């Protein structure tokens, strides 16, 4: 029992995590490719054409997973941030800052594909719908996090300041979501109801789930690669970094 705990904490050190992450990355890339190919195949060739929305609906195979990941990554980021503040572990802060760009990318993708989907379906690029608006604000929160971290030169302070911001953000996200939702229902005129979800064909659901898994694995792979770069940058004065094969060559 005791051994297991020690083993977990062993990987909290950048020195031991760096090679572990290096070993894990190819596996996550392989899973990304696997789920991605399967999901795209189902999405484009197996899933039937939607009766109301035609072929255009297929954009949800990108849009929905991207939105899910954008929210999920913020939670994971806040989790690492809390861990970093609580235990004062260096790796947690690095994980949080490695996750932020991917989260921002997902939020942006979700907004972008949402606009592309909205044009043929609703006849407009953008509506001030509750989900769109809160996704936009989530994107702003990511940008704020990244901007704050990049403005602070001392990496330890950047980690901690970012952690406080991420935690304040995570407390605020439900409040923001419900405020925006209420605001939206009060302004009935401009809104388009997204809530009556049409019953989805089984194959569509499978395609979406597979794509969500692909996005998930992609996020892990990219974040691990980014955290390795951050480790190298921050630990460049450490002896073990100088001994690495890729650094010596």
């Amino acid at each position, binding site marked *: 029992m005791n051994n297991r705990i020690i083993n977990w904490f062993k990987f909290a050190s950048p020195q031991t995590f760096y090679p572990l992450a290096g070993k894990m990355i190819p596996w996550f890339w392989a899973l990304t490719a696997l789920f991605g190919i399967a999901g795209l195949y189902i999405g484009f060739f197996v899933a039937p054409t939607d009766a109301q929305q035609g072929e255009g609906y297929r954009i949800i195979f990108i849009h929905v997973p991207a939105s899910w990941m954008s929210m999920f990554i913020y939670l994971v980021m806040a989790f690492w941030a809390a861990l970093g503040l609580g235990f004062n572990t260096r790796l947690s802060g690095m994980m949080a800052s490695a996750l932020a760009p991917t989260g921002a990318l997902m939020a942006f993708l979700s907004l972008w594909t949402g606009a592309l989907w909205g044009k043929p379906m609703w006849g407009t690029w953008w509506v001030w719908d509750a989900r769109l608006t809160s996704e936009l604000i989530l994107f702003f929160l990511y940008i704020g996090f990244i901007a704050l971290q990049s*403005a602070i030169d001392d990496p330890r302070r950047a980690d901690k300041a970012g952690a406080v911001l991420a935690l304040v953000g995570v407390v605020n996200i439900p409040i923001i979501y419900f405020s925006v939702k209420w605001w939206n229902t009060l302004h009935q005129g401009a809104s388009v109801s997204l809530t009556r979800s049409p019953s989805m064909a089984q194959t569509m659901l499978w395609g979406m789930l597979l794509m969500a898994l692909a996005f998930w694995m992609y996020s892990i792979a990219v974040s691990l690669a980014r955290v390795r770069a951050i480790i190298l940058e921050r630990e460049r004065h450490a002896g073990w970094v100088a001994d690495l094969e890729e650094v010596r060559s």
Partner: protein
Amino acid sequence: MDGPSLPAALGAVIRRDLLLAMRRKSDVLTTLFFFIIVVSLFPLGVGPEMAMLRQIAPGVLWVAALLATMLSLNRLFAADHADGTLEQMALSAVPLGVLVTGKVIAHWLLSGLPLALLAPVLGLQFDLAAGSLAVLVVSLLIGTPVLSLIGAVGAALTLGVRGGGVLVSLLVLPLYVPVLIFGAGAVEADLTGLGATAHLSLLAAFLALAAFFGPWATTVALRIALE
């Protein structure tokens, strides 16, 4: 080792910050005039139709209040950080959270309160009725302390950071969204005859939440900045 009692310390910080502001009135007045100018620009940009102005008035006044509060956040900690007062506060026997609360209260007395008192005059330019003006003042009185409390977290996080002034807007404005929605919503609900009680109650709920978590998060952020 007996420090001063907590209410005494709180009062002392508030008094000190108010006194400092009175000696340098231009800081406070600049924010107020910024508020007035921004609000007065909207009719020039949108056009002088009273019906439309009445419709956009709550949003315009609230967004201007948001921006004015945000501009004044810099002076919350920056001067004390520069001359080392903040470090002395962190070292004092009184919990830093209490002192931070005092500073936030002083900040609200110097930014939020004048804005709320000034708003009805500007509301008249937008042809708001007396009842709506009263709701506007009440919503600002409840809402602007939340802005000061959340803003203090942002100000503490960006203390001594490159480009802190612009950065703080990026951090804080997304977090102001719920206050904006319900603050402007209260006035709008009154205009449409729905009654503003629900909005004002929710604003008060935000105030309770922010009053509890805000100083605490600000303290953590200050300690990080002072490390």
